[in-house]
């Protein structure tokens, strides 16, 4: 009798666990609001700023006006994906940085591992990890970006850059005002 009850006990146990498992899967199946995936490129998707965190490490953007061409980011890069060139003297076709002239700022995204090590030591805080992450292309040269000519890729980055610029302008104006105020009594 013991073996018989064990035999049917086993069947009971198996059937029970199968049914319980089916209960769980049923519960999810009939609840569309549990669905966590979204369609790629869905129009219902919120704008990127909403779901990409602020600290997201996407494709870099550079505030060219601030850059002083100090090569620190180039040195910090563990995979040598940044190549920059420029000089203190003005020359044709160069970008005017903060007293410097940069002629080249190439970022090879094929190599980049998005570690943020280039942004951290920047003395002028001018290179940033942006919000754009879509870098698919048909050729490898597609991944090589010239940060001087290619601006921020996404709207979020553009607005962030604009905000940063505004900050500089206001800071400069404030500094000027302070200087003027300091001069007056003298």
């Amino acid at each position, binding site marked *: 009798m013991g073996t018989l009850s064990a035999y049917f006990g086993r069947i009971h*146990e*198996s059937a*029970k*666990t*199968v049914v*319980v*498992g089916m209960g*769980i*899967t049923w519960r999810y199946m009939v609840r569309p609001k549990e669905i*966590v995936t979204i369609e790629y490129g869905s129009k219902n998707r919120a704008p990127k700023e909403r779901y990409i*965190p*602020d*600290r*997201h*490490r996407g494709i870099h953007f550079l505030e060219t006006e601030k850059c002083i061409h100090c090569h620190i980011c180039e040195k*910090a890069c*563990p995979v040598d994906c940044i190549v920059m060139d420029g000089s203190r003297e003005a020359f044709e076709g160069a970008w005017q940085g903060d007293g410097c002239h940069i002629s080249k700022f190439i970022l090879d995204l094929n190599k980049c*591992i*998005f*570690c*943020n*090590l280039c942004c*951290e*030591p920047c003395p002028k805080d001018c290179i940033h*990890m942006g919000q754009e992450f879509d870098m698919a292309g048909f050729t490898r040269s597609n991944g090589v970006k010239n940060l001087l000519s290619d601006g921020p890729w996404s709207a979020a980055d553009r607005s962030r850059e604009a905000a940063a610029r505004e900050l500089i302008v206001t800071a400069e104006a404030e500094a000027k005002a302070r200087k003027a105020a300091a001069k007056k009594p003298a």
Partner: protein
Amino acid sequence: MSSEATSTAALAPGGADLRTEEMLLNMGPQHPATHGVLRVMVRTDGEMVLDCEPHVGYLHRCFEKHCENVTTLQAVLYTDRLDYLTAMGNNWGFCMAVEKLYGPELVIPERAQYIRVICQELNRIASHLLAIGTYGMDVGAITPFLYCFREREKILTIFEHICGQRLNYNYIRPGGVAYDVDDAMLALIGDFCSYFLPKIDEYDDLLSGNDIFVKRTANVGVLSAKLAIDYGCTGPVLRGSGVPRDLRKDKPYGIYERFEFDVPVGSGEHGTVGDCFDRYMVRVREMRESTRIVRQALKSIPGGEIRSAKIKAKIRPPKGEAFTRIENSRGDLGFYVVSDGKEVLYRVKCRAPSFHNISVLPEISRGSMLADLIAIIGSLDIVLGEVDR
């Protein structure tokens, strides 16, 4: 499996009247169940595995050589790529070794310690979720895998908020952590904890309690405690064999001595101690314990600095040698670092838990069936990025 193992031995050619032919089966490096690029040479007799031999090295990326060529700070992000499912732990392990070189004067700020613990435990949950999910898939249950990924996704998003990346964090740095965590993020983690605990019950109902699953994993791949220690197995693999060894308890690093948690060990609920089910169950229970730790840490996290001022931007570890280990989600992750006082470390050796855990595979899979071999590989939960480094 023991009785079946002996019967297989009798079935082996020469032992039986019926002459059967052995087959040499090459499993991997491209096989859905090898969790990466592991190649296992299997000698089979029908469905029975007579012997198997794992071949590793298909993912060798010269981690140790890299570390001899990049600065200490840059080496941190190479550790991300070891056990890419527990990158926080790798960061921490490496940073701990570097910090040890600085000697006891180096004090890591309290807040950084707490953030480290929270991140590490969340990462442990994420890693175990993947281990459980893929284990379900190895034995044929695909749905739990997706459920686990759903939860893991939330943890990864939390990490994305904290440090900007989902997998290769490069977050824990020598002397502290890279960025501060704001209160909203901490609240988010708290919300996740309360959401997550009931989900573990669900996995228990759906997978761990399922009779087919239990029958597939119980008494399969029994790893005795002695063998596990002999092979240097650590983490859930060792604990599954009933050995309650956990560095967080035995040699508390960081601030682990402040938290209350248990060390789950395999008890042979449905079979022998040290079988696949025990290893699996240890992981499930560890997720609960990790959630406990995270909650305690969230309660008592102080404010303040997140990076020690003693470590400058240019990290030049003092001359010396240090070997430290942390309890990563797959076992004891150790780093042996040798510094000659330069910015670049002289030698970095990584003691990878998966490297030990996979080496025990031939011992525990002899005499099992082919389907069991898959279950055993899954229960060892190896990450080839770490085995091959």
